[in-house]
Structure formats: structure tokens, C-alpha cells
């Protein structure tokens, strides 16, 4: 029972990760796309933790989800927010 739950939770995380990645690809508003990419990093952090890599999880959380998003947002603020066709 517990194993089944675990399996479902893990598959759900993977599905969320891929959905987040596809969202980051599809969103026309760059700010939304960056937030979707940050969401992918966050899920990846959880996956790293589940793979018994706490050091990498910490680095991914602080770099991938925080600093990367921040510099992306600064760059978008300095340029343009919409993905023109």
C-alpha cells in the first residue's frame, strides 16, 4: 500500500516536472515562462533529495530556483516581457 502510494507520488512528481517544462516552452509571457522554469527547478530539487543527494538539492534550490530566477527577472525587466513573433 505504502509502496504504491510512493510510486504514484514519484510518477506524479515526474509528470509535474515535464508539465512545468512544457509550460515554460509554451507561455508567451516571458515572466510566466521564467516562473515555470523555476517550478521545474523546484521539482528537480525534490527529485535530487529523493535520490539521496542533499548537497545537490540545496545547490539546485538556492541557485536554480532563487538566483537564476532573480537574474532572469532582472533581465526581463531591462528588456521586454512579451515573446514577440
Amino acid at each position, binding site marked *: 500500500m505504502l509502496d504504491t502510494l510512493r510510486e504514484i507520488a514519484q*510518477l506524479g512528481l515526474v509528470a509535474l516536472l515535464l508539465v512545468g*517544462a512544457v509550460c*515554460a516552452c509554451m507561455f508567451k509571457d*516571458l515572466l510566466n*515562462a*521564467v516562473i515555470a522554469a523555476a517550478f*521545474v527547478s523546484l521539482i528537480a530539487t525534490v527529485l535530487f533529495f529523493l535520490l539521496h543527494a542533499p548537497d*545537490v538539492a540545496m545547490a539546485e534550490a538556492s541557485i536554480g530556483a532563487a538566483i537564476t530566477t532573480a*537574474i532572469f527577472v532582472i533581465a*526581463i525587466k531591462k528588456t521586454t516581457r512579451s515573446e514577440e513573433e
Partner: protein
Amino acid sequence: MSALYENSYYIASVGLIAVGLYVMVVKKNLIKVLIGLSLFETGINLLFIAVGYLAGGTAPIFSTHSLLPGRMVDPVPQAVVLTAIVIGVAVLALALSLTIRLYEHYGTLNLRKVRDLKW
């Protein structure tokens, strides 16, 4: 179902690599391309960690004395991925500074338009 579960980390990492490469090849907007780059790198990092995983292992930290070295996951991919993450953020920061300058020069982030404006 169980094959899917056993390989779910591989599926996640290959999926991220595929989406990242697709974004980098197809999208015209430079910031979108860089988002693709960061997804691509996350996928590679996940792949590297997944390759070094040991089923039923523990994190490679002797937090209590009762842990057995024989049941620890491989520390080398973790050290390597730590390096790769930092290299990724360095490239991204440089790329975003170039993005800002590109926008100042051309007034657009569309790479096809930039190419047209150049000549």
C-alpha cells in the same frame, strides 16, 4: 507501470533534455532560448545524479555512526553536478548580460530579426 516507475528518473531527465533542446532550436526569442538552456542543464544534472544512484542507499554523509559505508549512494556524481550547476549559472549570467546589451543595440530580442537588422 513498474518499468515506468523504475525508470522514472531517466524519463524525467531525458524529457527535460528533449524539451530544452527543442526550445533552443525552435524559439526565436533569446530569453526563451536561455530558459531552454537552463532546462537542458537541469536535465543533464538529473541524469548524472540518477546514473550514480544506489537502490536503498543512504546519503553519503556520516551523520550518525550507525550508517554503513556499503549502503551509501555514489558521492562522485553529486560533487560533479555541484560543479555543473555552478558552471550553468555562470553561463546564464553572462548570457543575460549579453541579452541586455543586444536589446540596447537592436531593440528586439528576436534572433531572426537581429540577423536581418545586421546586414
